C-alpha cells in the first residue's frame, strides 16, 4: 500500500516539478522554434504515457495486493489487447518521429542565401574566420598550422588573402540572416554549442562539419565546447554577438585580414627603446621589475603574451576592475602605445633585455607545490616555460610575488572576469584549484625551482 501511494505521489510530484521548475530551456534566440515544438509534442506524448502506465500500476498494486485466500486469475495472453497496445504505441511513436524528421530535413538543408563563418576549435580556444570580400575561404591545411600561422592558411592561395581572421573567441553575426557555421578542429573533437540557438555540432579534425541557424535576437550568446576535449574542456568558452547589420559590417571591417596580418612590420627595437623609457620608470631599465613599485619583471616574457596583455589594458579587458589597483596604473601607460606598430616596437626592445631569473621572495612547501603544479603543466609546460599554442605565458624565472598576486586576482575575479578576457576567464577557473594562501605560496615556491 505505501508503495502505491508513493508511486502516485512520485507521478504527481514529477508533474509539479516539471511545471514549477525554474530550470528549463533558455529563451530561444534563433529560427529553431520547430525544435522546441517537437520537444513539446514529445513532452505531451511521453507525459501521458508516464502518468497513465504508472497510475495504472499503482491501481493494480492497491486493488490486487495480497489478501488472505485471494487467488490470481490465470490469463497467459490476450491477443486483442496486445495488438491494440502495439498499434497505439506505434501511433504515438509516429506522432513524435514525424515532426522530428521534418525538422531534421530543415537542418540538413542549408538555405542557399546563408552566409558562412568558420569556427575553429583547438585545445582550449575558439577562433573564427570570415571569407572576406570575395566570399570565398582560402585553403587551409592542418600541416601548415604554426604559431605564426594559427589558421594553417595557404600563403599562395589568392582566395585566402582577404579572409578575415578573428583570433579571439568572440565572433559577430548579423541578425535575421541565415548563417552557416563551418566547423573545423585543429587537434581533437570539440563541439560548438550555444544553448539559446538550440543547435550544436562536433568539430572533427581532418574534416569539416557544419550547422546553420538564423539568429533573431540581438545580444551576446556564450559558446560552450560540449565534447570532452581534455583536461581544460570546461574552460573552452567563447561568444557570438548578434548585431544589427551595420554594426556587424563596421566590426568586420575593423578585423584584420590575412594579408593585413602578414603586412604588419616586425617591431623595431631601436624605435621601441625610446618608447620604453616610459615603461622603465617602473619596470626598470633592464625590465627586471621593481617590487617597491609593484612592477613585475617583463624581460624574457614572450612577445605574444606582452602583446595580448598590452592590448587587454588598452581595451579595458584588463586593469578596469575597481579593485585592480596596480592594473589601473598600468592601463593609462599602455594607452600611450597608440597602435600595433608601437606595441611591436616596444616589445622588440623588451626582447633585447637580459633575462635573469628573478630572486625568490616567497617560500613554501615545494612538494605540495609540485603536486598542485601538475594541472598547470598542461598549459604552461612542465618547466613553466609557457606554450604559445595554448596562450599560456611563461611562469618560471619571472617575478614570484607578482605570480602570487595574479593567482589571487584570478581567484577573486579581479582579473579574468571581463567578458573579453577569455584566457583570463580560463585562468580564473583553473586558479580555483588552489584552495588556500598556503597553496599559492607552495605552487609559486615550486615554480621558483623550475
Amino acid at each position: 500500500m505505501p508503495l502505491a501511494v508513493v508511486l502516485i505521489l512520485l507521478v504527481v510530484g514529477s508533474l509539479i516539478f516539471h511545471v514549477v521548475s525554474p530550470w528549463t530551456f533558455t529563451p530561444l534566440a534563433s529560427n529553431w522554434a520547430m525544435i522546441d515544438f517537437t520537444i513539446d509534442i514529445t513532452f505531451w506524448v511521453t507525459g501521458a504515457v508516464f502518468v497513465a502506465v504508472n497510475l495504472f500500476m499503482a491501481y493494480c498494486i492497491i486493488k490486487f495486493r495480497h489478501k488472505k485466500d485471494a487467488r490470481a486469475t490465470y490469463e497467459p495472453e490476450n491477443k486483442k489487447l496486445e495488438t491494440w497496445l502495439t498499434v497505439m504505441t506505434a501511433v504515438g511513436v509516429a506522432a513524435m518521429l514525424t515532426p522530428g524528421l521534418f525538422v531534421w530535413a530543415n537542418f540538413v538543408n542549408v538555405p542557399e542565401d546563408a552566409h558562412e563563418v568558420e569556427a575553429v576549435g583547438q585545445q582550449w580556444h575558439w577562433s573564427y574566420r570570415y571569407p572576406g570580400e570575395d566570399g570565398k575561404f582560402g585553403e587551409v591545411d592542418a600541416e601548415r598550422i604554426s604559431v605564426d600561422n594559427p589558421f594553417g592558411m595557404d600563403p599562395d592561395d589568392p582566395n585566402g588573402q582577404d579572409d578575415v581572421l578573428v583570433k579571439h573567441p568572440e565572433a559577430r553575426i548579423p541578425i535575421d540572416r541565415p548563417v552557416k557555421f563551418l566547423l573545423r578542429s585543429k587537434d581533437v573533437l570539440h563541439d560548438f554549442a550555444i544553448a539559446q540557438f538550440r543547435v550544436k555540432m562536433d568539430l572533427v579534425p581532418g574534416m569539416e562539419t557544419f550547422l546553420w541557424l538564423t539568429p533573431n535576437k540581438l545580444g551576446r550568446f556564450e559558446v560552450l565546447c560540449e565534447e570532452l576535449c581534455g583536461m581544460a574542456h570546461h574552460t573552452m568558452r567563447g561568444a557570438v554577438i548578434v548585431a544589427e547589420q551595420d554594426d556587424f559590417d563596421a566590426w568586420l571591417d575593423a578585423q584584420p585580414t590575412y594579408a593585413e596580418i602578414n603586412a604588419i612590420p616586425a617591431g623595431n627595437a631601436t624605435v621601441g627603446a625610446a618608447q620604453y623609457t616610459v615603461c622603465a620608470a617602473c619596470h626598470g631599465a633592464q625590465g627586471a621589475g621593481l617590487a617597491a613599485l609593484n612592477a613585475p619583471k617583463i624581460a624574457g616574457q614572450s612577445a605574444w603574451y606582452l602583446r595580448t596583455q598590452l592590448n587587454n589594458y588598452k581595451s579595458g579587458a584588463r586593469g578596469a576592475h575597481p579593485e585592480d589597483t596596480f592594473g589601473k596604473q598600468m592601463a593609462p601607460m599602455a594607452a600611450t602605445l597608440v597602435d600595433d606598430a608601437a606595441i611591436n616596437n616596444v616589445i622588440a626592445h623588451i626582447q633585447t633585455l637580459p633575462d635573469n631569473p628573478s630572486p625568490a621572495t616567497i617560500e613554501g612547501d615545494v612538494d605540495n607545490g609540485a603536486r598542485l603544479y601538475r594541472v598547470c603543466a598542461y598549459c604552461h609546460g612542465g618547466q613553466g616555460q609557457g606554450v604559445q599554442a595554448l596562450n599560456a605565458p611563461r611562469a618560471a624565472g619571472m617575478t614570484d610575488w607578482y605570480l602570487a598576486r595574479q593567482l589571487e586576482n584570478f581567484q577573486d575575479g579581479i582579473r579574468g572576469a571581463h567578458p573579453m578576457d577569455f584566457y583570463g576567464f580560463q585562468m580564473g577557473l583553473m586558479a580555483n584549484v588552489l584552495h588556500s594562501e598556503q597553496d599559492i605560496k607552495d605552487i609559486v615556491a615550486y615554480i621558483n625551482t623550475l
Partner: protein
Amino acid sequence: MGYVAIADRDHEVEHHDPQTFITKYIWSQDHKVIAIQYGLTAIFVGLIALGLSAMMRLQLGFPDSFSFINPENYYQFVTMHGMIMVIYLLTALFLGGFGNYLIPLMVGSRDMVFPFLNMLSYWVYLVSVIILLISFFVPGGSTGAGWTLYPPQAILPGTPGVEWGILLMLASLGVFIIAFTMGGLNYVTTVLQARCRGMTLMRMPLSVWGIFIATILGLLAFPALLVSAIMMLLDKTMATSFFMPAISSMGVDPGHTGGSPILFQHLFWFFGHPEVYIVALPAFGIVSDLLSTHARKNIFGYRMMVWAIIAIGGLSFVVWAHHMYVSGMNPYFGFFFATTTLIIAVPTALKVYNWVFTLWEGNIHLRVPMLFAIGFVFTFIHGGLTGLFLGNVTIDLPLSDTYFVVAHFHMVMGVSPVLVVFGAIYHWWPKITGRMYSEKLGKWHFWMTFLGTYSIYLPMHYLGFAGVPRRYFAMGNTDFMPASAQDLNAFITMAALFVAVTQILFFVNVIWSLRKGPKADPNPWDATTLEWQTPDTPPKHGNWGHELPECHRWAYDYSVPGYKDDFIPQNVPAEDAPVGRQHGVEEH
C-alpha cells in the same frame, strides 16, 4: 529443438567433484561458485566506481571546496566511474554472475557445458580488473578520456593518463573481452545444448531468455570494441593513423595523417549500443520472473515477451549512430537512425505493458524482491520515455552532451538495472546461501535507494534542459544559466551521497543473514522454476543429485484454475497437475 543428453549422463555427477577447499572454492569449476566469484568481484569494483561518483558529485555540488579534487583527477574519476559501472560491474554481474548461477539451474543442467573454460573466464576477468586497478597507480594515473575513449584526445597530451593509463585501459578491455568470450560461448552453448528433458526453448524462464540473447549480443558486439582498442593501441604506440588525421596538438605535429576519429565512434557505438541491451535484457528477463512469482500470476504475454527480447536484441545493432547525431557524421544518417531508434520503442513499450498487466488481477506480495521489481518498472518507464527525446534526432540537437543525457542513461542503465540486481539478489539469496535475510532491512534498503536515486536523476534532466553541459569540472559564471542551478547541483550531491551511504544497509543485511539469518525453505516464494526444485539448498555440485529433472510445462503455471496450490513447478508431470499452457509441448 530438443534437449541434448550431455549433462544427464549418470557419471556426470562425480565427473569433476571438487576434493579440496582450493578446488571447491578457488579453482572451482562449479558454475555456482564461479557465479559468486564473478558477483563479489563485480560488486567490489562497483563500490570503487561508486566512490568515484561521490568524488565527482562533491565537486559538482560544492565546486572547488576539496583540495583532493582537481580538473585532472576529476576527469579520471568520470572516466573510470563510467567504464567500471558499464563493463566491469553490470556486464560482469548480469552475465558472469546471474548468467552463471541461473542458466544451468533454470534449464535443468548439471553445470555449464565447458566448466574448465568457465573457470578460466572468471580468472581472466579478474586479471582484467587487476590491470584496470593498476592504472590508478601508474605515473600520470588512469585515463581521463571519458568512458567513450574518443580519439584523438584519448591518446594525446592534454588528456590525463595519456602516459600509461590509456594503455592499461585498452589492455584491460582486451583481456575482459577474452574473458567474456569464454564465458559467453559457454552460456549460449549451455542454453542450446544442455537443457533438461522437456525444457523446450519456449518453456524457458524469461531470465534465461534475457541472459541468452544478451550473451549473443555481447559475442557479436564486443569484437568491435576489441578491434577499436587494438587499433587505438597501434595509433598510440606504433604511430599508425587509424583514427588520427593530420593535426596540430598543442602546437606540435604528432605525425599522423589520414585517419578518421569518426571511424572509432562507429566501432565504439556498434559495440556500445548493444552493450546497453547486454545490461538491459538480463534485467528485463529477471524482472519478469520476479513480478510473476511475487504476483502469483503468469507473466502476461510470454511469447510476445520472448519475441520482444529477440526483436530488441536484433534492432539494437541498427541504432548505434543515434549516439552520434551531432558527431559530424553525414547528417543524412540521422533519418535512418532516428527511425530505427524510435521503432525499438515499440517492443520495449510492450514489455512494460506486459509487466504491468502481470500485476493486473494478480495476488501481489510486496516482498523485498517485488518492491525492487516494481521500482524498476517505474524508473525504467521514466528512462525509456526520456530516450524518446534523445532518439529523435531533432531533439538531440539541444540536449546532446548535456545533463539530460547523463540523467537519461543513469535512469535507464544505472538505476533500473541496479534495482533489478538488488531485487534478484534478494530473490535468489535464500537459494544461494540457504538463509533468509532481514525483510525489514531489505525494505529500508529499497526505500532509501528508490527514492534517493529518483531525487538524484529527476532534477538532473532539468539541468540538461537549461543547457548545463556534461563533463564540466566547473561551470564558472555564465549569463544564460540561473544561479539556482548550483543549488540544484548541491541538492543532487546530497541525494547521491545519501544513496551511496544507505547501501550499507544492504551489506549489513548480507552479513546479518550469513551469520544469524534463519535457515531458508528450499522454495520460500513458492516459485515454479527449476532452480527452486533442487534436492539441496544451496544446491550441491552437480545441482540435481542423481537424477536430472524433467520439464513438463512452461515456467509460469501460477494460480492455474482447478489446482489446489497457486503454483505448479515445471518438473511436475502433466498427470499430477493440469498443464496451464500448451505452447511448446508439441515439440516434445
